C-alpha cells in the first residue's frame, strides 16, 4: 500500500474483547508506543472494562459494580482509544483485514488482537437452562444471582474451584443457605493439596457454607424455575439458585470460522501471534505451548509481551510460575508453582491446626518450585519471588518456611 501524498497514517490496531486482557494490552501499547496505533476496542459487554476478579466482593456486597471499573469512561477518549461497547462480533475476515459485528458494522485493522476470554462451561445436564441457573462470569451474572438472593433462600454452587467458592461466599454473605458441590475429593484441587483444601473446607464450613465433595450432579430440577439439584447418589438438594462454576472454555468460534489454528484455545507463538500473521491472541482465549492460562498474572505478562512486539521490539511471552490467592475475607490461601511435588521433589511442611496454619514448600534440586500457604500468607511474596527467581535455597533451607526475617538472621 502506498500513501504517497498523505502523511504516514497510523496503523490501526483493533482489539476484540474489553476484558482484563484487552484493556491491559492497550495500556501496555500506549506506554510503549503511544503514537503508533489508532486503537479501537470492541466490547460485547455494555460497560467499559472492569476488574473481573472483584466480582466476588460485589456479589458479597463488599463493593458495588461501579467500584470495579478499571478506567473511568473518559479515560478512553483522553488516550485516543475508541471504545465500542455492546458490540458483538459476528465474523472475522482476515483477507479483508476486517471484522463484522452483528449490527452490520465493519471495522478494519492493520493488526488484530483477539482478547475474547472464555465462557463458563455449561454442563449437559437436564434443567441447566432453567431460570435461576446462572453462571458466574460478568456483572450481569452477579445481577442475576442477587435477584435470587435473600435471607433464608437456598443456593447450590456446582464447582468447588476458586470461582465457585467465591460465589458461595458471596451468597452466604447475602444471607443464603449455600451448598457447594464438588466432583473431586477435595476443593480447589488445581491449586491446593489435600491438606490445605481440608483447612479451607473447615474455614468455609465455619462460615456457614456446606460442602459436598465427590458430589456428581444428575440433574437440575424444576419446571419454570429451578427448585433443586439431584445428585447421582439420589440425594436432592432444594435450591432457589444454582450457580455453575465448573470451569471455563476459551471462546474460539470466530477464529475457528476464520480458519485460524485452534486447539483448545487459539494457538499462538511466543510473540502471541496466531497462525495468521497480523492476528494476535492473548488471555484466556489463547493457547500457548499447549496451555490455556486462566489467571491474571500470565495474562498481564502476555499483554506486556504482545505490546512489546507490537511496538516493534522483540517481545516474547515466557510462561512463569503462577500463584493463586483466594479472595474470601478471613481465609488466607496462597498457592504457587508446582505445589503437587512428586518424584524428585522434597517437601518442607509446617502445620499448626489449632492456629489454622499450614504451609508446604516444594523443593527440587535446591530450588523452591512450589508453595501452598493456608492461614498465614504473609510470606507469600517471598516464596513466590524465590520460585520465580530459581535461587539456590540450600543455605537458607532450615529457616526458609519461617519467611524472610528468619532467613536474613540465618
Amino acid at each position, binding site marked *: 500500500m502506498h500513501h504517497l501524498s498523505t502523511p504516514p497514517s497510523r496503523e490501526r490496531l483493533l482489539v476484540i474483547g474489553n476484558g482484563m486482557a484487552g484493556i491491559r494490552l492497550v495500556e501496555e501499547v500506549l506506554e510503549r508506543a503511544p503514537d503508533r496505533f489508532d486503537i479501537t476496542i470492541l466490547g460485547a459487554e455494555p460497560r467499559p472494562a472492569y476488574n473481573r476478579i472483584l466480582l466476588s466482593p460485589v456479589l458479597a456486597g463488599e463493593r458495588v459494580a461501579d467500584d470495579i471499573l478499571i478506567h473511568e469512561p473518559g479515560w478512553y477518549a483522553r488516550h485516543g482509544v475508541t471504545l465500542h461497547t455492546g458490540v458483538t462480533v459476528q465474523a472475522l475476515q482476515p483477507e479483508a483485514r476486517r471484522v463484522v459485528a452483528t449490527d452490520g458494522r465493519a471495522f478494519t485493522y492493520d493488526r488484530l488482537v483477539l482478547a475474547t476470554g472464555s465462557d463458563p462451561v455449561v454442563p449437559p445436564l437436564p434443567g441447566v437452562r432453567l431460570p435461576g441457573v446462572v453462571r458466574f462470569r460478568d456483572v450481569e451474572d452477579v445481577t442475576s444471582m442477587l435477584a435470587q438472593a435473600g435471607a433464608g433462600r437456598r443456593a447450590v454452587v456446582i464447582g468447588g474451584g476458586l470461582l465457585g467458592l467465591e460465589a458461595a461466599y458471596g451468597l452466604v454473605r447475602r444471607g443464603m443457605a449455600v451448598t457447594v458441590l464438588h466432583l473431586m475429593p477435595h476443593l480447589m484441587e488445581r491449586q491446593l493439596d489435600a491438606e490445605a483444601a481440608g483447612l479451607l473446607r473447615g474455614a468455609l464450613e465455619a462460615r456457614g457454607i456446606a460442602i459436598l465433595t465427590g458430589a456428581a450432579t444428575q440433574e437440575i430440577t424444576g419446571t419454570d424455575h429451578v427448585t433443586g439439584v439431584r445428585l447421582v447418589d439420589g440425594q436432592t438438594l432444594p435450591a432457589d439458585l444454582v450457580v455453575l462454576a465448573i470451569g471455563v472454555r476459551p471462546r474460539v468460534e470466530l477464529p475457528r470460522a476464520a480458519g485460524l489454528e485452534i486447539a483448545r484455545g487459539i494457538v499462538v507463538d511466543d510473540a502471541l501471534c496466531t497462525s495468521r500473521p497480523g492476528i494476535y491472541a492473548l488471555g484466556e482465549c489463547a493457547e500457548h505451548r499447549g496451555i490455556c492460562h486462566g489467571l491474571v498474572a500470565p495474562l498481564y505478562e502476555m499483554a506486556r509481551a504482545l505490546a512489546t512486539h507490537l511496538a516493534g521490539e522483540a517481545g516474547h511471552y515466557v510462561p512463569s510460575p503462577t500463584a493463586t490467592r483466594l479472595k474470601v475475607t478471613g481465609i488466607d490461601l496462597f498457592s504457587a508453582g508446582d505445589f503437587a511435588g512428586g518424584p524428585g521433589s522434597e517437601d*518442607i511442611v509446617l502445620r499448626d491446626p*489449632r492456629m489454622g496454619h499450614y504451609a508446604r514448600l516444594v523443593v527440587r534440586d535446591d530450588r523452591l518450585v512450589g508453595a501452598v500457604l493456608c492461614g498465614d500468607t504473609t510470606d507469600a511474596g517471598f516464596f513466590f519471588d524465590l520460585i520465580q527467581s530459581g535461587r539456590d535455597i540450600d543455605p537458607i533451607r532450615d529457616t526458609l518456611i519461617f519467611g524472610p526475617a*528468619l532467613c536474613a538472621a540465618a
Partner: protein
Amino acid sequence: MTALTTPALVRTTCPYCGTGCGVLGGPSPVTAGDPGHPANHGRVCTKGSALGETLSLENRLLHPMVKGERTGWETALDLVAARFRAAIETHGPESVAFYASGQLLTEDYYVANKLMKGFIGAANIDTNSRLCMASSVAGHVRAFGEDIVPCCYEDLDEADLVILVGSNAAWCHPILFRRLTDARARRGTRLVAIDPRRSATASDCDLFLPIHPGTDVLLFNGLLAHLARIGALDKAYLERSTAGFPATLAAAQQDAPDVETVARGCGLEVALVEAFYAAFAATRRVVTVYSQGVNQSSHGTDKVNAIINCHLATGRIGAPGMGPFSFTGQPNAMGGREVGGLANQLAAHAGFTEAADLDRVRDFWRAPRLAERPGLKAVELFNALGEGRIRALWVMGTNPAASLPDAARVRAALESCDFLVVSDCVAGTDTARHADVLLPAAAWGEKAGTVTNSERRISRQRAFMPLPGEARPDWWMLTQVARRLGHGAAFAYDSPADIFREHAALSGFRNERRLFDISGLADLSDADYEALDPVQWPVPAGQRAGTARLLTQGRFPTPDGRARLVPVRQAAPAHAPSTAAPLVLNTGRLRDQWHTMTRTGEVPRLMAQAAEAFVAVHPLDAAAAGLREGDIADITSAWGRARGRVRLSDDLSAGQIFMPMHWTDEAMPFGSPGRAVNPDCDAVSGQPELKHTPVRLSPVPLGWEGLLLSRRRLRPENIDYWARTPIEGGHAYRLAGSGAAEDGMERALHLLGDDAGRAELRDQRRGIFRCAITDDAGRMLDYLMIAAPGALPDPDWLFTMFASTGPLDSQMRRSLLAARSSGPVVAAGEIVCSCFGIGSEAIRQAISDGARDTAALGAALKCGTNCGSCLPELRRFIAAGEGGRERAMPCFLPS
C-alpha cells in the same frame, strides 16, 4: 536471716556427703545451713542448698507393694518374715542377707545388724559403704588396731600443708574444701593434689601431681624412703609408739630406691615429686586427706597404710593441724561402721577375731545364735545371690543394680533371686524393678535418728515433715520383721532414742581399749536425745562432751598400745590395659549429683551441670576411636558396656577416660559405668576397684538426635538412646537413634500418643522434625525436636519457654517450630554456678569484660556468692581467661 528466727525451723543434718553439715529444715520446703553446726557453720553446697527442692512426692514409694500390687503393711511384713523364716529353716541362716546403705541412720543400721548377726545368726549384712570406705576402715584397723579417724575439721584450719590424695573435695566435699581454701587465704596453707585427673580440686591446688593410675603406694613409699634418707623421721615417736618400722622402710626402699624411680613409675616429672617430698619433709603440720581415689582400688588398703606410714614415721598424728584424714562419702558411713554395718565387723567396733569380742556382744544382746564368722562382702554377696546361695535378700536404701561393679551380673542375680525385698523412699530404681516386695521408707526430713560424719561427729537428723502415705522408718520395718521372726523381746523399741541408748550402752560394755565409746550418752532421756547437740565420739561414761582429736598421747587401741607401720609394696591394678581394651576407665562424682540421682536427679538446677552421662576423653584417644565432641560412645570392657556423651578433655592423660558414677537406667539406660567396671576387689577390704577398668571406646552410629520436653515422666524404651533430666515444669529427654530421622520421629511421636492438634514442622530430606503439643488453652504439654546428629540447637531458651505455664501465642508457636528464640539468643553454656544458674558463656563474657577474680565475678553475676562450690571452677575460668588453661601449675618449693 529472718528465717532463722522462725520457731518452726528444725535443726537437722544434710543427707549427702560425709561432711555432715547442719541444715535447718522448715515446714515449707525451705532449707538453709545451720550457723550453729560446727561442721559447716551455716554454709551449704549446691546440693545442700537445693534440699528444699527435693522434697516433692514425685517418684516416691508411698505404699507397700507385693509383686507390683499395692498391699497393706501387715501383709507385706508377714510375707517378708515368712519367706526369710522359710529360707533360714530350709537352707540355714547364711542363706539370707541384708544389703544396707550409708544413707541409713545409725539406729536403722543398728537394728538391721543386730537382727542379722545376733538373731538370724549369720553375718550376711553388708552395705554400700563397702564401695566407699572399706579400704580406709581396713587400713585404720591395720595401723591403729581400730577404725579410727584421728583428725577433726579444725585440723584442716590449722594445717600448713594439706595433701589431697584421690579426693575431689572441691566437688565431693565442697564445704570442707572451702575450709581449706579459706585457710590458704588466711594462713597460707599450701594445697597439694595427687590424682590422675585434673579435677576441680587439682585445678585449685598449689601443686598438682597427675599421678599414673594406681601408683599411690609407690609415691608414698618413695616419700617414706626419702624422709628416711634425709633424716626427717621422728625416731622418738617411732620408738615409743609404733611397731613394724624396719620392715616397712625396707619394703619402701625396695619399691623406691630413689626419686627418679618414683617419678618414672608414677609418670611424674622428677621436679614435681621432689617438690612434694620437700614440702612434706619441711612441714610439720601436714594433713593427708584421702578418699575414693585411694579406697576404690584392688590395693586400696595398702594405699591407706602407705599414707599412714608416713604420718606415723614423722609423728605427725594426734596433734593440731596434722594426721591422715579419710573423707567419707556418705552421710552415715561412719555411723554404719560403729554399729557393724559391714559384714566383717560385729558391733561397736567389735570384730570376729577375738573371742572376747564375740562374748561381749553375745552377752549384751542375749543372742545365743550370734554369728561367729564374717559374712559376705558386697561383691561376694551378690555373687552368692547369683549362684543361688542367698535365697532371700533385703536391700535397704541403696541401688546395687547401678552402683556395684559388673552390674550386668548383679542385675541377673537380683532377677534370679528367690525373694527380694527392697525398702526405699523412691519407687523407681534399677534395683526396685526386680523386687518381690517393696517397702516404703521414710525419707530425709521425715525420719529421725543420728548420723556420724567424717570427723566422728554424731549429729541428729530430725523430722520436720509428716510421714507421707504409708512410709515408715527402716528401724520400724526391721523391728516388725524381727518380732514376726520370734525375737520380740530383743526388738522392743518404740523410738530411735530407745535404739540409740542401747547402742551407746553396748559401746561401753566391757570396753577395755576400744576408742569407740559413747556410753556417756547411754542414759539420755527422750528429751535429751531430742535436743542432742552435735558431739564427737568418744563420749565415755560420765561425760557428755565429745573429743575432737584422737591418738594425742601416742597410745593406740592395739594389744601393745603401739601403732603398726605396715610394709606395703607397689602393685599394679588388677587388670592392665590391652590391645582389646587400651583405655583405663576412671569413675567419680559430679559436684551437683548425689549417688544414683534419686534425689538430686529430680532438681532442674542440679541437673544443669550435666544433662547426660558423659565420658571425658582425651582428644588423642577420641581421634583414635573416631569420636568427636558430642558423639555418643560405647565404653566396652570384658564385663560389659556403658554409654556416654563424649566430652573432649585434657584433664586426664591420653589413655585414661572418666565417667560420672551417677546415672542409672531410670535416667539414662547404660549411663551407669557399673556395667563396664571390673569386679576385682581389694583382698583385705573387699572394696571393688571402681576406678580402674580397661575398656575400649567405640562410636555409636547415629541417624538422628532429638530433644523431647514433656510434662510427663516417660520411659522411652522404644528408643535406642535416651536420657531424662528434670526441667522447670516437667522433663527433658535427649533422644538418639541409629535409624533414619523419620524413624526417630515416629518412635518419639509414639511416646506422646496421637494428637491431631499438634503444631509441627517436617523437612524429611534434612531429617528435621519439630512439634509442639498444647492443651485446649494453648499451653505447651510436649515439645519434640528431631535433627541430624549434632545439629540440635542450644535448648536453654526452650526450657525457659516450657517453664512458663501460660498459653503460647502465635509468635511462640512459630519460635518453637523454628527452634529459635524469638528474642536475642544468648547460649548459657554449661551451668557452672548452680545456685544462680550462671553458665560458662556468661562467665567468660564477664571475664573478658574485666572481672579478674571471683569476687568481681560474684559482683557481676552473683556466681559463687551463695554456696561457693563453684569457686574452684570460677578460678579456673579466670586463669583460662588470663593465659589459657595450659598455664604451668605453680610449683612451690620449700623455703
